[in-house]
Every structure is written in structure tokens, then in C-alpha cells.
């Protein structure tokens, strides 16, 4: 499902709680963010909600670090991706959003994969998940190749994504909603 930019802006108009971040998404930041999430959310969310938010948020941040086209060199001769991330929470839903630059050659392949995952029902997703954990990770995957599938299964909602082009740069954004 691809949303127009205006629709995305409207769905993000929450005020109850809003966490926003823009920058490097390396493992060090992931640890800091996880601690922040535990300290601020573990007691105000149900355990199931908290685990879903933790999983989806960390997968999205990790994906920025792995795949963002905008890279920053780290001190130990590695590099990591940069991007934007937000977590917005109201009494009725929690919305997690991320955006990063993407290799223009890759966005169609990624969009097709997400479209396929979003169209599957719970049983089909479970079957695909079980198949994927038994197979070698795809060549273009730096993780387990099951992150998006698990985000959809745990949140029970599709991943909304949008491709945006600005000058010579292509951006991809992801949004996942967890109903409370």
C-alpha cells in the first residue's frame, strides 16, 4: 500500500507522545534507543504492545543502518546508514515511521516484496516466516530476511511505504501502526 505524502502527514498528526530522531543508526544508537524505550514505555504499554514496538522499532532502525544510501564513516573503518525515525503514541495507536535514502536501483524490488507480504493473511505469513527461517538469507539481506514479515505479523497491520524523489535522491519511508 503506498500513501500519498499528504495522507502520511495527516496520519502522523498525534500529540500524546512523540519521539523523533534524525541521524546515524548504528548499533550503539540501537542500544541507547532500546534503553530509552524500556525506561519510558515498558510500564505504560501492555507487555505485548511493548514487545511489538520494541521489535518493529529496532528492525526499522537496523534497516536504516544496514541499507540507507546515505552513509557515515565510523571510527573502526566501518560505515553505517543515516535516516529519520519517529515513534508517535496516542491512547488508540502507536505509529512507528522511518525514512532513508535508497539506492534508486533497489526501490522497485523492495516495493514488490512489501506488496507481496502485505497481501498475505496471517496463516500465509506464518508459513512464509517458517520457510524463510529455514533458508539461507537472500544475497541482498544483511539480516535474517524475516524482519518485514515479523513486523506485519506482530503488529497485525501492513507496512505502509512510500517512495519519494527529490532532485537526484530517492527516499523510502516505512510506517507501521500498532492498534491499542
Amino acid at each position, binding site marked *: 500500500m503506498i500513501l500519498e505524502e499528504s495522507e502520511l502527514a495527516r496520519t502522523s498528526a498525534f500529540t500524546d507522545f512523540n519521539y523523533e530522531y534524525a541521524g546515524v543508526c*548504528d*548499533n550503539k544508537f*540501537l*542500544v541507547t534507543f*532500546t*534503553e530509552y524505550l524500556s525506561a519510558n514505555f515498558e510500564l505504560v504499554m501492555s*507487555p*505485548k504492545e511493548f*514487545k*511489538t514496538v*520494541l*521489535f518493529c522499532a*529496532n*528492525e526499522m532502525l*537496523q534497516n536504516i543502518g544496514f541499507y540507507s544510501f546515505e552513509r557515515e564513516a565510523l571510527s573502526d573503518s566501518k560505515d553505517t546508514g543515516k535516516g529519520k525515525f519517529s515513534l508517535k503514541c496516542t491512547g488508540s495507536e502507536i505509529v512507528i515511521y522511518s525514512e532513508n535514502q535508497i539506492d534508486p536501483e533497489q526501490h522497485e524490488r523492495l516495493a514488490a516484496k512489501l506488496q507481496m507480504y502485505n497481501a498475505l493473511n496471517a496463516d500465509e505469513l*506464518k508459513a512464509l516466516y*517458517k520457510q524463510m*527461517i*529455514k533458508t539461507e*538469507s537472500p544475497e541482498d539481506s544483511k*539480516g*535474517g*530476511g*524475516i*524482519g518485514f514479515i*515479523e513486523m506485519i505479523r*506482530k503488529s497485525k497491520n501492513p507496512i505502509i511505504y512510500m517512495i519519494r524523489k527529490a532532485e537526484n535522491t530517492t527516499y523510502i519511508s516505512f510506517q507501521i501502526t500498532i492498534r491499542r
Partner: protein
Amino acid sequence: MDNLLLSKTKNTLGVNFDANNGILELSGSSYPENTTEFFRPLIDWIQKYFLNVTGKLTLNIKIDYLNSSSIKYLSDMIDKLENYHKSGGTVEINWYHKEDDEDIMEMGEEIKEDVSFKFTIISV
């Protein structure tokens, strides 16, 4: 055969693999910077145990959170246990979860569906 001991960190599991009694324990959260680098020695240790010790193996799993790539490596580890069981070895997994942690409980239930050895889910 040497035991394998790794202290728990904020983003890596605590590991206590005891070759003397065949009791292995994993505990904590896992979202390491390099998942392969963390899990590969654990899987190698298990394979070496099966080759050299060939005794009963009990794996106690007490996890709070796994990222997607850690789930995949844990699944790989459990596949090795399933193969050992199918070739005549004795294997058992005790999967612990906090009473209110549905997420970890459900993960255990799904893994249990695919193994033929004794797999006990324990609420603590």
C-alpha cells in the same frame, strides 16, 4: 571439550554451555552489531559437542528479546539439535518465558510445532 561462557551484555545473550553435564543456557536480549560473529561460535560448539561427547543435551532458553537475524540463528541452532535427535541423540529444550510475555511464549510455541524432541514451555 571446553565449556563456553559469555557474559550477558545489553545487546548480546548470556551463554553458559557446559560440556561436562550437557546443559546449555541462553539468556537475555539479542540484537548484536554482527549477529553472525556472535552466533557462529555457539553453533560450532554444539556441532563439536555432538561429534565429541554424544551425550544428552539440554538447552535452557530464557530470552527477553531477539531481533530478526537472531531468531534465524536460534532456529539454525535448533535445527542442529533436531538432526542430532533424529540420528539417535537425546535432546531437550526448556523454553522459559515471563508469565505476561505472550511474545516469547508464542515464539516458543511456533518452534515447538517443528521439533520432534521434548520441548517444554515454562511460564515463570
